[in-house]
């Protein structure tokens, strides 16, 4: 009881390590495993103490019921029924788990645990569910394990093609996971399945590939198995030298291993068999002897023991040593009988029959050969069956035809089967490859989709960045434009300011001139006359002669004239004082005066006195000034006019400016716009105004502007005042 428990503990630890090594990234799994191990430890302890199964069966249920039930199920000490109940309970518990990842993990555990359970249906159900669950959760590790479990299951059931398929599936997954160790192991398993159907070449190739994977990992045990397998294949191919070579290499790897007893013996037996098959029985004998020399082999591995004994006896016999051959063979047969090893039994019986044949004991030979045939048939060892049939033709020449017929039929049948199996393997491989290719295609499609997604994301991001960039750019431009506009406004103000300043000076000069004129007039005309009158009156004194009287009358007359002159001057002065001439209007007027002076054109300028012309914004004033300048120039240059009439008027909300000439005119539509016109256009636009030209050949031209009135801010007024320009005084 305890022994079995310990073995089971060992197995579990092994499995745990196998699993945990594959799940290094998932600490939760590890912890769960440790909990399981702990639970098991507790369980085994309690078993040591109480030796009571039922007691503990329920006591640890609360802790980790699933793991517990799985352990219970695996415990071969329980009855099959009990085990099944335990597994079903575990399965039932797993079904209740809602978290997929945990469920997958437990299913995987249960799948592994139930491989060797006799109720294969249970395993199959669990395993299928595990596979489905693993696919659902995309847990490739569990999926690979499930395939592995399934393959093992088929392997035990001796269904090599199914087994091969699942090994192959597992191998592909491991390959995808870059797990070379497991990939190599699966390869090896595949190779074994291939050998089963005598696909020796295929098996050899697969084994070599497995070796390629395992060699860098220095997995000596697996390498040993691979080379041993290669030896087996080449032996079957009757390439004994190569087989020996492979076995020697396998022996080399075996020596690297610490635990190797069992393997060493079977290897020795294998080597012996190579020699035996090669007819070198003398060489073979020492190997078989060595196998048999192992201490208590008969109890540890009775199968091998019987095999070796059988082989030794046969080799000795073939080598001419007939002593105790029959008894040894019979002994081996006895052992095989006891362990129910039908497959090996057929060989032993075959050898025995051959021995009897050699000893000319045909009756015994025939009887034994028939037994051998039956054993071969029972163990479905067709190779042996064929050989036995061959032997029978020799033993029983009378029925030789029947045996030969049977031989041929069987041989054909076998070959057909093998070929089919091999084909099937190829198909499996092909289909899987195809499936993989499909997967890869899907993967590629997925990649393409991801790429597309990335492209779209990139494009979206790009578009976002671009729009932000554009926004910043536009904003910046807008700001710049505003700044430029302000600057232009300022420049316009400055320009008009300068214009006004010079105009102001002119006005001042004019005023001064006027003052001077008045002063001179006073001085010369009035003062002179007054002085003269005074002088005369002084001179005349009291004189009363005729001349004197006449001169006095003259003086009085002059006095009257002086009076008139003074009145006149006074009038002029008052008129000058009250007349307000705005600067801007003055500027226009002086512009027109200059024009008049330079040409023979007469200009007439009128303006509405209701408008505060100086109060208009600098922008309007300068643009208007320039437009008048431009249009007057146009009139002079092109119109050949005699008169230009300019009127500054006002409508309800707008200034209405008219520039009319009596020149030759032009067809407005036919005329292409010159720089001058375009300048006017842009200036009007700046003032938010509108304009048009009316003209006909020979009927003069009229330019009409409509500009919204806009007075400048009081601050500017203040500023201009400070600068000495009195706009509206």
């Amino acid at each position, binding site marked *: 009881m305890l022994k079995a428990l310990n073995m089971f503990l060992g197995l579990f630890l092994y499995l745990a390590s196998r699993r945990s090594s594959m799940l290094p990234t998932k600490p939760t799994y590890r912890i769960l495993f440790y909990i399981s191990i702990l639970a098991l430890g507790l369980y085994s302890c309690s078993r040591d103490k109480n030796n009571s199964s039922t007691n503990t069966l329920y006591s640890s249920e609360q802790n980790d019921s699933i793991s517990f039930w799985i352990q219970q199920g695996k415990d071969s000490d329980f009855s099959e029924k009990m085990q099944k109940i335990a597994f079903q309970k575990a399965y039932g518990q797993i079904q209740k788990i809602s978290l997929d990842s945990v469920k997958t993990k437990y299913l995987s555990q249960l799948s592994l645990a139930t491989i060797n359970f006799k109720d294969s249906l249970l395993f199959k159900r669990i395993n299928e569910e595990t596979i489905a669950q693993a696919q659902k959760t995309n847990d490739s590790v569990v999926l690979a394990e499930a395939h592995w479990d399934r393959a093992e299951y088929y392997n035990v059931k001796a269904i090599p093609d199914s087994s091969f398929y699942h090994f192959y599936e597992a191998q592909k997954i491991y390959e995808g996971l870059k797990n070379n160790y497991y990939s190599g192991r699966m390869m090896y398993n595949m190779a074994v399945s291939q050998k089963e159907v005598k696909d020796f070449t295929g098996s050899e190739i697969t084994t070599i590939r497995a070796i390629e994977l395992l060699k860098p990992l220095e997995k000596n045990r697996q390498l040993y198995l691979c080379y041993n397998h290669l030896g087996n294949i080449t032996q079957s191919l009757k390439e004994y030298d190569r087989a020996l070579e492979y076995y020697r290499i396998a022996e080399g790897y075996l020596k690297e291993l610490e635990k190797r007893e069992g393997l060493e013996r079977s290897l020795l037996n294998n080597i012996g068999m190579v020699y035996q098959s090669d007819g070198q029985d003398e060489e073979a004998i020492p190997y078989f002897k060595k196998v048999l020399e192992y201490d208590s082999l008969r109890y540890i591995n009775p199968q091998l023991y019987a095999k070796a004994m059988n082989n030794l006896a046969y080799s000795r016999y073939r080598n001419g040593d007939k002593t105790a051959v029959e008894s040894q063979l019979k002994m081996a047969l006895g052992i095989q009988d006891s362990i129910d090893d039908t497959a090996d039994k057929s060989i032993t019986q075959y050898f025995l029959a051959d021995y009897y044949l050699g000893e000319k004991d045909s009756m015994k030979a025939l009887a034994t050969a028939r037994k051998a045939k039956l054993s071969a048939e029972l163990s479905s060892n067709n190779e042996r069956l064929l050989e036995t049939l061959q032997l029978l033709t020799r033993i029983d020449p009378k029925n030789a035809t029947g045996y030969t017929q049977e031989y041929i039929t069987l041989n054909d049948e076998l070959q057909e089967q093998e070929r089919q199996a091999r084909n099937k393997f190829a198909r499996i491989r092909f289909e899987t490859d195809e499936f993989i290719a499909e997967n890869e295609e899907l993967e590629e499609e997925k990649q393409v989709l991801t790429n597309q997604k990335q492209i779209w994301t990139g494009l979206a991001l790009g578009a976002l960045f671009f729009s932000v960039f554009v926004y910043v750019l536009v904003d910046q431009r807008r700001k710049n434009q505003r700044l430029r506009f302000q600057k232009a406004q300022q420049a316009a103000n400055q320009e008009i300011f300068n214009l006004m300043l010079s105009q102001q000076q002119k006005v001042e000069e004019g005023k001064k001139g006027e003052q001077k004129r008045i002063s001179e007039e006073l001085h010369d005309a009035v*003062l002179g006359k007054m*002085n003269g*009158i005074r002088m*005369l009156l002084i001179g*005349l004194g009291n004189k009363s002669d005729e001349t004197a009287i006449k*001169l006095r009358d003259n003086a009085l007359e*002059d006095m009257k004239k002086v009076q008139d002159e003074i009145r006149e001057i006074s009038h002029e002065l008052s008129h000058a004082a009250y007349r307000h001439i705005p600067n801007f209007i003055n500027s226009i007027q002086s512009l027109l005066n200059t024009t008049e002076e330079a040409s023979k054109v007469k200009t007439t300028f009128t303006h509405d006195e209701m408008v505060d012309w100086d109060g208009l914004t600098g922008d309007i004033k300068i643009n208007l000034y320039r437009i008048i300048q431009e249009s007057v120039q146009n009139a002079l240059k092109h119109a050949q006019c005699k008169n230009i009439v300019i009127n500054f008027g006002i409508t309800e909300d707008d200034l209405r400016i008219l520039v009319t000439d009596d020149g030759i005119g032009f067809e407005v539509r036919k005329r292409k716009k010159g720089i001058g016109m375009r300048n006017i256009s842009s200036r009007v636009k700046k003032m938010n105004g509108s304009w048009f030209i009316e003209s006909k050949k020979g009927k003069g031209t009229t330019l009409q502007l409509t500009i919204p009135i806009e007075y400048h801010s009081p601050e500017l007024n203040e500023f201009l005042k400070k600068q000495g320009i009195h706009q509206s005084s």
Partner: protein
Amino acid sequence: MSTENPDIIEYKRILAVDDHEMTTLGYKYILEAAEFDDYKVIVDTCKTFEDAKSRIEQSAKLYCYDIFLLDIQLFGPEEKDARSGEDLGILARKVAPDTKVVFMSSFGDAYRILNICKTTNPDGYLVKSEIDKLTLIAMVKKVLENPPYYTAIAMKALRNNAAYADMVSEQDKKLLYYLAKGVRVKELHEILSVSAATINSRKRHLKSIFGIEHGNDLALIEQARERGFL
């Protein structure tokens, strides 16, 4: 000589030039009626520049005038004739250096007075508004015996100028001249080839001389004009 022979009456001849005939007539009546110690006065009148000019020229050859009384403004403002009594004065000095030249003008500004003094160095200057009977007689006496004769306003103008003459340099005068023309300080320092700072400091100096420390440039120019620097 006159005292030796009281029977022989000596006559002093005067030519009065003024575009206003009444003025000259006034002078004539006043002076011819006046009582002088040793002589009598005869006044000839003349009201146009051309007439005055020919008489001055004749004065040297025919009979000699003792005094020319010259008005400065001989044309009305509408005539725009640049010639003036000043030209007559210059002519008189040239052709008849012995004849006394006296200006009788309504101009009372220092500049005009000083300018005329410079060009013709007259024997007298009378501002018309100051003229009366006594002034005229006094003028004739003074001019004939011990020239020059100045009326109060003319005297003041001359004295004013004399007082400041030492303090106002030629450079200052130029400065005032250009300032009055309206040249800006910016351009002025280039014309006078001195720094703008110098110009400002000179201006301050001039203002302090004229007693208008806090006045502007206009006040400065007005003062300069009053004092005969412009």
